[in-house]
């Protein structure tokens, strides 16, 4: 299983990369390679050109701007997993990343690559949606920003125009002490999720849920926010009964089918994951007074 022949380009700046994408036909971007290379080895793709982004400086790393965390597109998944900054402001990320593939793939795999590949069962797109992340894109027409929701044009299809590439992801903070939980069901450690659920919760001084975000991955053709569930949660005191009712929203998911599971099964599992993620998030919430 050897890759088909292609021309190889290694631009050293974003501008150069965009220029290449502008003039090359049938080109694929090479980020971490953990998704592209298997497809090349299996000959599912026949690009004429491969544009390697790995030597472009300043496309990896973390920065803060106001109440937002910005992660460069070429930041390795492993770097996000072990970053103290990320652990501080968005602890759901390191937790979920432990479930992403294996160490060998996280060392090379990038957040940008994962978002652009947009496998619905992948953890990072699900988290980006959970956070309503802003995707920063550079292209021939300049820079633009698009919400994760709008970035997901369809099954494994990001809303990128010709010649564009993702350069960063920007996430808003949730307040210190927020509850978070990420639970997935995979057949083996590191496998893609058959269904995953990510939850962020904020509680008010009255003990009721003030804000909630619930995202499910692996079930629909793209990760999905359970907005109906979120509405049900806000204003309620957290508890098992509530979580079970909320999890029942998963019955409405338009689920995929593959060798690992049919639609009904996926919906059921999604419900279980949502319940468990809600419970985990609730257990982690620190009362506002306790967070100093």
């Amino acid at each position, binding site marked *: *299983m*050897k*890759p*088909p*022949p292609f021309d190889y380009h290694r631009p050293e700046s974003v501008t150069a990369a965009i220029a290449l994408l502008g003039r090359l036909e049938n080109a694929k971007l090479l980020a971490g390679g953990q998704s592209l290379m298997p497809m090349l080895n*299996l*000959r599912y793709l026949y690009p004429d050109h491969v544009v390697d982004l790995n030597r472009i400086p300043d496309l990896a790393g973390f920065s803060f701007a106001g109440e937002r965390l910005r992660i460069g597109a070429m930041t390795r998944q492993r770097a996000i997993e072990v970053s103290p900054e990320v652990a501080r402001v968005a602890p759901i990320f390191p937790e979920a990343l432990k479930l992403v593939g294996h160490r060998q793939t996280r060392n090379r795999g990038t957040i940008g690559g994962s978002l652009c590949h947009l496998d619905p069962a992948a953890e990072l797109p699900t988290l980006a949606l959970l956070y309503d992340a802003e995707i920063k894109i550079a292209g021939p027409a300049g820079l633009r920003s698009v919400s994760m929701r709008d970035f997901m044009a369809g099954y494994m299809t990001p809303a990128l125009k010709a010649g564009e590439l993702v350069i960063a992801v920007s996430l808003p903070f949730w307040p210190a002490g927020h509850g978070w939980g990420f639970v997935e*069901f995979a*057949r*083996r*450690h*590191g*496998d*893609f999720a*058959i269904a995953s659920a990510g939850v962020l919760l904020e509680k008010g001084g009255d003990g009721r849920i003030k804000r909630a975000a619930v995202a499910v991955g692996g079930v629909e053709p793209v990760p999905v926010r359970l907005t109906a569930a979120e509405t049900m949660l806000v204003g309620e005191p957290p508890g098992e009964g509530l979580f079970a009712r909320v999890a029942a929203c998963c019955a409405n998911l338009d689920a995929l089918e593959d*060798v*690992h*599971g*049919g639609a009904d*099964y996926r919906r*059921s*599992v999604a419900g*279980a994951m949502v319940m468990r993620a809600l419970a985990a998030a609730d257990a982690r919430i620190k009362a506002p007074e306790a967070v100093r």
Partner: protein
Amino acid sequence: MSAVIGQPVLRIEDRALLTGKGRYIDDIPLDGALHAAFVRSAHPHALIKRLDAGAARSVAGVHAVLTLDDIAPVMARRRMTRVARTGKPKDSMWPFALSDGEVAFVGEPVAIVLADSRYIAEDAAALVAVDYEPLPSIADLRKCLEPDAPKVRRELASNVIATYKVEYGDVEAAFRAAAHVFREAIPQHRGGAHPIEGRGILVENRRSDGRFNIWMSTQKVHDTHQLFCELLDLDENDVRVVAADVGGGFGPKLLVYPEDIAVLAAAKLTGRSVKWIEDRREHFLGAVQERDQIWDMEIAVDKEGRIQALRGKLLHDQGAYALQDINLPYNSATSVAGPYIVPALFMEVVIAQTNKGPVSSVRGAGYPQAAFAMERLMDLVATKLGLDRAELRRRNLIPPEKMPYEKPLKARSGEPILYDSGDYPACQAQVLAAAGWEDFPARQQAALQDGRYIGIGLANAVKGTGRGPFESGLVRVAASGRVSVFTGAAAMGQGLATALAQITADQLGVKPEDVTVVAGDTATVPLGLGGFASRQLITAGSSVLLAGQAVAAKARKLASAMLEAAEADLEFVGGAVRVVGTDRTVGLGDLARALRGAPGYAFPEGIEPGLEASAAFRTDPLAYSNTSHVAEVEVDILTGQVRVVRYLAIQDVGRRVNPLIVDGQVQGGIVHGISNALFERMGYDEAGQPTTTTFADYLLPSAAEVPMLETLYRESPSPLNPLGAKGVGEVGTIPAAPAVISAVEDALKPFGVRISETPILPERLFALIQQGRRAGRG
């Protein structure tokens, strides 16, 4: 017996493998060898109307694109037929090296491309334009029996290749008189072997002398050599077959495949050396798989649950072709009784073809399916009669006072089948005690209060090992003093070299690490059979033992003359023969030199030249290993996920030459069996298109999916060979799937779930749980 036999001697194979110096088939350099890739059928059944290799041939670096018509002129016959010893498979069972115009499974080789690199060969293969006319195909094992089902190949009048009966005792009477009769359908699904290293062959077409040196990742070199010469019309003296280091065998590497013949024919035709290294997708499509069987069974028992008779039908899926005599369903049907007393048996065996990959042995070779069927039936009886599963088995296990136990069933040769030794009830009792079987119900209840579903399962099995008629063994001492062992047995990671080195070291007073073992080279020994059916320690080990004894006898005789001491006063120590209690020695090398002869000088009286001996220990009856496994699982009822939490296995494999190696074989076997229960399912759609062709879809467990494995041993030495040994390679696999399934069912008792299939994947288990809930249980 000795300071070496029975010791956990560390392996002599390890250093090379640990330092990356192994020589697997793709590691062997050969300048000028062309690389092969295959054009393979994309259809489960089709005619090839046209094949256009023009574009492929014009790719730079491509040397040839060959079809059957191109290679047939250098072959003895067009089809890969062989004389079938059982007489059962007809000529129409066998494949062609390359398609003869009709393809019968997805992945069937159609053409071979030879190029300067594998990369280029694949480029060219993708450009070969094949015009297929799809034909009706059939993948379902039950449906393929229907009279109007499509035939797997047009030449077949029926998809049934063979039917036969295995029977003894008066089954009808037993069923009529029985207190209880229970029925069950037990479907079992195929999986692959998937050694981490795939198949491979390197044919060196030697310009020096026109001969062929063939390296292969193979489990048998002599029969392969025979078949190569026969099919390619080659002189046996012009062909040498050598096993490379083998990165796991497990069954598929026991065969000669169309690809092997195509590569050899291509080499012969073009005058070039040719190399083919299988990739993982090819292994999914073309390497043999097995376990596809449907068992429709009935069991008759008395009031106490003692088996009166067993009867049923075994429907076996052979896939599109047979690559050797079909042995698996025979193994299954004749071993179903396992370690239990079954006074009457009737099995109807039906062997059918489907448009799926060809079927042959994968670790266990039909025994796992039989154990699964029997053990599920035992659990069924226990449940129905309200008996503890272990107690029911206790009542039926062949007791030690009945050993050696002659089964009412005869072997194909007409010989009685005799379980030679073993204490089955004691083994079961010992593993149950270690597992805390009696305490488990209390633990289970406590877990249930916590909303957790845990279960425990038990399964027993026996395995006939040491299949004869022999394996070759030659022990030679060189003038340098180096001791070498040669054998037709095959090394594939099981520590064969270490075991044989231990046996030899024991005879000649050298250290195992100073013994060189060459396994699987037709140039070193003329005869051999190879590695399958857990046979090599018994057969090769015994031959090497006898050869070593003969060499020692010669050495002793000569040393006695040279040292002027009585033979009884001599001992073997540190590579020399020594007069006991003195420091008078003569080195093994010196003895060897004396026996090489020096022209013009006196030669020792009464001794044949050469300090070497060869032996082929003859054995026909099988030595029976037995095993009892206990599995503990936890089930997540919201996902159907099963976690194996604890696993214990006791085995009696006779005298263990190297307990470390035995442990490794058992542990690896167990995980394969666990995997057959919970993970591995080779999927095909209704038409016969494979749906799981990568490791992303077809799951092998990693270290995170299995626990530590607790192994226990009893040793009932086999009286059938001088080592007292029994085979161990497959015994870990055989009862593992039923042990796990039994545990899963036990965990889900609250839902009344009954599992009589394997594998059971989470979605299916989830559905069974839901069914139970809807019926008001749990």
